[in-house]
């Protein structure tokens, strides 16, 4: 035990150092560097100007704000759709849960592109929905490249990350607690509100983190469904990096993104804990 434990401890620290601390340090170093016409396109130094510019430029701020807003909407949407799904699976008999989980998750993991395209096909100006609207005598509506289209795509994509942790938590819930609640006079709805829901908060928290963090940095879906107006921070970063070749600025934006992604949920969590919702 002691040997293998020491080995694993060493391995995990090595891992953290190699893949978490090292790249973060490099990105931070680039963020503090000066852009240059060299390869790679910067010279090391200590120039907080890029970070300051990233944090203050209204364009970047708008992109960051839009990203956080989109991520928040995605997270809430995933929670509203994913929680009932997770609960439904957790209430099934144990032997069919794994199959059901796979069956429900499969559509989200397979043919991602195909389904995004199906959405495009449905939502575009000459798509099926507008076709149906015209047939019914209405004026066609602009659906694609709107906020709603973006949200649908995002929620659709990130749903599994909400369902899995919530399900894992609900599956661990002692069914005897629900029996006890019923025994004490709680209707199924009240038992859910007073027992199931508060006890699933850690799963919800994990799901929120797993959806919110990657959703903030998402750059493929906004491009496909959100159109040119959806200048999310992931997209801006991409442009700075590839089109403008301003690595220090891209790195600064990445640091800013990371900071807001880590700090925001932490603050939210603090508030939740202070209100006594956590277990």
């Amino acid at each position, binding site marked *: 035990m002691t040997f293998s434990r020491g080995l694993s401890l060493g391995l995990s620290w090595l891992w953290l150092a190699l893949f978490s601390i090292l790249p973060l340090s490099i990105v931070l170093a680039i963020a503090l560097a000066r852009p240059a016409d060299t390869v790679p396109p910067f010279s090391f130094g200590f120039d907080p100007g890029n970070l300051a510019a990233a944090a203050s430029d209204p364009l970047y701020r708008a992109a960051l704000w839009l990203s956080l807003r989109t991520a928040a909407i995605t997270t809430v949407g995933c929670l509203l759709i994913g929680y009932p799904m997770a609960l439904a699976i957790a209430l099934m008999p144990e032997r069919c849960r794994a199959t059901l989980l796979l069956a429900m998750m499969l559509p989200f993991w397979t043919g991602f592109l195909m389904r995004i395209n199906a959405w495009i096909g449905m939502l575009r100006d000459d798509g099926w929905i507008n076709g149906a609207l015209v047939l019914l005598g209405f004026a066609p509506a602009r659906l694609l490249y709107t906020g709603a289209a973006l949200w649908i795509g995002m929620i659709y994509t990130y749903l599994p990350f909400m369902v899995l942790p919530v399900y894992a938590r609900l599956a661990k819930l002692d069914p005897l607690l629900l029996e*006890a*609640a*019923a025994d004490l*006079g709680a209707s199924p709805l009240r038992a859910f509100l007073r027992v199931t829901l508060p006890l699933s908060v850690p799963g919800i928290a994990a799901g929120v983190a797993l959806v919110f963090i990657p959703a903030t940095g998402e750059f493929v879906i906004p491009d496909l469904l959100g159109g040119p107006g959806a200048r999310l921070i992931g997209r801006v970063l991409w442009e700075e990096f590839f089109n403008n070749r301003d690595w220090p600025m891209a790195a600064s934006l990445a640091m800013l993104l990371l900071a807001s992604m880590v700090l925001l949920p932490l603050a939210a969590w603090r508030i939740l804990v202070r209100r006594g919702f956590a*277990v």
Partner: protein
Amino acid sequence: MDLTVHRGELFVLLGGSGSGKTTLLRAIGGFVRPDAGAIVLNGADLGRMPPHRRPVNTVFQSGALFPHLSVAANIAFGPRQRGMKRTAVAARVEELLALVRLEGFGGRRPSELSGGQQQRVALARGLAAEPSLLLLDEPLAALDRGLRADTAAELVALQKRLGTTFILVTHDQNEALTMADRIGVMRAGRMAQVGTPREVFETPANRFVAEFMGVTNLWKGTVGGDGMTMDVPLLSAAIRLAAPTAAGPAAVGVRAERIRIGAVSGGNQLRGVPERSVYSGETVTHAIRLGQNGIVFVTEPAHGAAHLDGEVTLSFPPSACLVFPR
């Protein structure tokens, strides 16, 4: 199965694992639906009533306390669901905490309490909504042996003081005998016997109950034509019975503590060779070999018990013989 539990009674369902005692309790609580038959409480059929509408509360074996709620909130759960007002609930919680001697523990989480304290909170929670009937599923099983006897005595005293009807499930014969007003011994989903502790212990209705109640000497035999003697081939002996019994195959049971070592006039007498003795503090139990395969267990008080050597005579009165049909 037909069973009537009286109002204000402490009724104990006693049985081994798989005897159906917990299933019966869950049927009363509303967690399983009986295939047939009715469950009637104070004249009202509970048959199709969901658990949360039944005026019945349960103390679960594991306690099943809500881990995210304080002790006070756990106890307040039932009254709150039944629509009691906040201030009344608070008073009721204080009353119950006092009842189970946990004053000042209201603010703690269940995980901060010991097993015995958790069990007492579960009891308080079950009593909080003043149920007509309280179901207790092995309430002492999770407790340390030392704590168990005291808690049992407290539970009985509490039940007598409140007058609430209790149905308690246990697999522990001793617990049932010491606590119950009446006992129902269950076996394979049926009632093997219902009666007071004395009735069940002293006149078991059948071999199963006798064995469950610790009758260690049980022999097959044949009752003679006179109905007053029984021939037991295993012991190569005829045993005199106290009351006339139908002739034919039967079984006879004699408690190990009703058999004396040494000749006593007017009783059945057997001779055998001591094989081994097991000391258990208050008593010593000897295994005495009779003939080829017969073993008779004899229990005597350990204090003053003699060391056995060589052949001994065993005596027991006909009144100690329990006869069961085979």
